[in-house]
């Protein structure tokens, strides 16, 4: 079939991986920077005398926001220049997986970090005397935003440095592990940007709540990391569990499907959870006395928003652990990949939709706290209906796994 020998495959994988990791990481940081620059422009036009503070904040903000891209650079250099001791096809797949994990993971953090930077600049334009506090909040928010990229880097380093032997099934498992972690980190990375940004806006609007806002931002961002953690669980299982008992076909497809399922579904829940956290920071800034109700509503809304990611995780687990009868037929393999695709993409829409509902609910609970009960009820009803398409997707996935 192929006349390329294994060490060459490994070198090709390393080169391709190096470029991919660095390229994707740079794109994320550039998009985030674009957002910050656009808002800094607006801020400068609103308040030209504060230009010194605004540009200082942009400068400092970019240095921290780039951290995820620097991790990607480190991984890329290691991929390109480190010699691989035991070349095998599994190692080649592991290197591609590592680059996907780090590259995709850095995109989300890069984009997300742009939001606190931009909003902080606008806050300084509105209230120049708060520039110290705004800059600090921006830095904390940006730093939290780097967390998914750090998780992705851990998986990437594991994939690069652990020796996996040459079980052919591992090829699919390792590539899929990188895909799962990379995709899962995108949503959480972007999502974490929302509370960071809104907290900066809130501090400018309501300086005495700055401690409360920073706290709420941290709580919301922490919950927002959940989808990335689901993805990491799937990645770790794929990397470390011994699957050598299972037949190659169609298990390779099951692994690919598992990675796609949790990876893509986590994007929606990550962004949705983040939007909710952002809305709660806005609500607290507008009506500081409602902080308790707003935080509770945010947590409820975020929890429901994680449901699509949980469905994705469930399908992934079934795909990884169920024993499938050996079959070299292409249809059996494609059924399993199809199951992963169905649940994976199916989780994106409802995740974001649930987040939108919860974001609006949290904003308006703050403005109208006596009727919080009505709004929470409606929020839950709306989220449940929005969830229905995720349920259809899961039904199709389960049919593909069990019936066909």
């Amino acid at each position: 079939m192929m006349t390329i020998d294994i060490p060459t495959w490994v070198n090709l994988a390393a080169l391709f991986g190096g470029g991919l990791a660095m390229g994707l990481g740079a794109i994320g940081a550039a998009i985030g920077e674009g957002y910050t620059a656009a808002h800094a422009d607006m801020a400068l036009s609103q308040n030209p005398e504060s230009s010194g503070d605004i540009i200082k904040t942009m400068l400092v903000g970019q240095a921290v926001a780039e951290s995820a891209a620097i991790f990607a650079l480190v991984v890329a250099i290691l991929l390109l220049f480190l010699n691989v001791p035991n070349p095998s096809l599994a190692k080649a797949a592991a290197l591609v997986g590592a680059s996907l994990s780090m590259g995709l993971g850095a995109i989300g953090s890069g984009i997300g970090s742009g939001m606190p930077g931009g909003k902080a600049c606008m806050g300084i334009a509105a209230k120049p005397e708060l520039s110290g506090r705004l800059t600090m909040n921006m830095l904390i928010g940006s730093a939290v935003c780097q967390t998914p990229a750090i998780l992705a880097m851990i998986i990437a380093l594991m994939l690069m440095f652990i020796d996996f032997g040459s079980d052919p099934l591992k090829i699919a498992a390792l590539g899929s592990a990188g895909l799962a972690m990379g995709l899962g980190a995108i949503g959480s990375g972007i999502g974490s940007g929302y509370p960071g940004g809104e907290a900066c806006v809130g501090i400018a609007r309501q300086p005495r709540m700055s401690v409360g806002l920073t706290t709420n931002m941290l709580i919301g961002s922490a919950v927002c990391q959940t989808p990335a953690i689901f993805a990491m669980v799937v990645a770790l299982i794929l990397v470390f569990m011994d699957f050598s008992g299972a037949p190659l076909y169609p298990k390779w497809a099951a692994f690919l499907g598992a990675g796609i399922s949790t990876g893509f579904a986590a994007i929606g829940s990550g962004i949705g959870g983040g939007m909710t956290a952002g809305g709660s920071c806005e609500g607290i800034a507008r009506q500081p006395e409602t902080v308790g109700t707003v935080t509770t509503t945010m947590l409820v809304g975020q929890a429901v928003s994680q449901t699509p990611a949980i469905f994705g995780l469930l399908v992934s687990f079934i795909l990884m652990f169920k024993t499938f009868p050996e079959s070299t037929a292409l249809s059996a393999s494609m059924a399993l990949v199809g199951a992963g695709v169905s649940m994976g993409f199916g989780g994106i829409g409802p995740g974001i939709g649930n987040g939108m509902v919860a974001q609006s609910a949290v904003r308006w609970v703050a403005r109208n706290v006596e009727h919080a009960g009505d709004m929470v009820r409606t929020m839950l009803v709306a989220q449940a209906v929005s969830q229905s398409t995720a349920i259809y997707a899961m039904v199709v996935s389960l049919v593909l796994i069990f019936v066909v």
Partner: protein
Amino acid sequence: MEAIRQTQKKYCSRAIVTAIALGGFLILIGHQPLGKGFILGSIFSVINFILIGETLPPRLGKTRSKTVLIALGSIFLRFGLMAVPLILAVKFDQFNLFAVIFGIFTVQMMIIADQYLSRMGSTER
């Protein structure tokens, strides 16, 4: 721009002082690769920060897509430069890799340390 120069001078000078102090200390107590790696990383951290400042003004006042492109170009330029210490660390044993990576983040650490120190200073009052 004046604000950029001030910030650059502040953080870069602190970073260099820390680098020489910590790196020199490590070399003196016998951990040569760690010390050299840290100093090497810090030098490039400073260069990177200065270049961010230089490439910042062109980004303001342009359309969204142009801003992203300029940012992308700036990133590739600076990361190409930052690849140098990393490659040196991988190829030569006299520079410890982890120390170099740690050193690349020196300016960022100075920034965050500055925030916390000034925060503690203001709450004391």
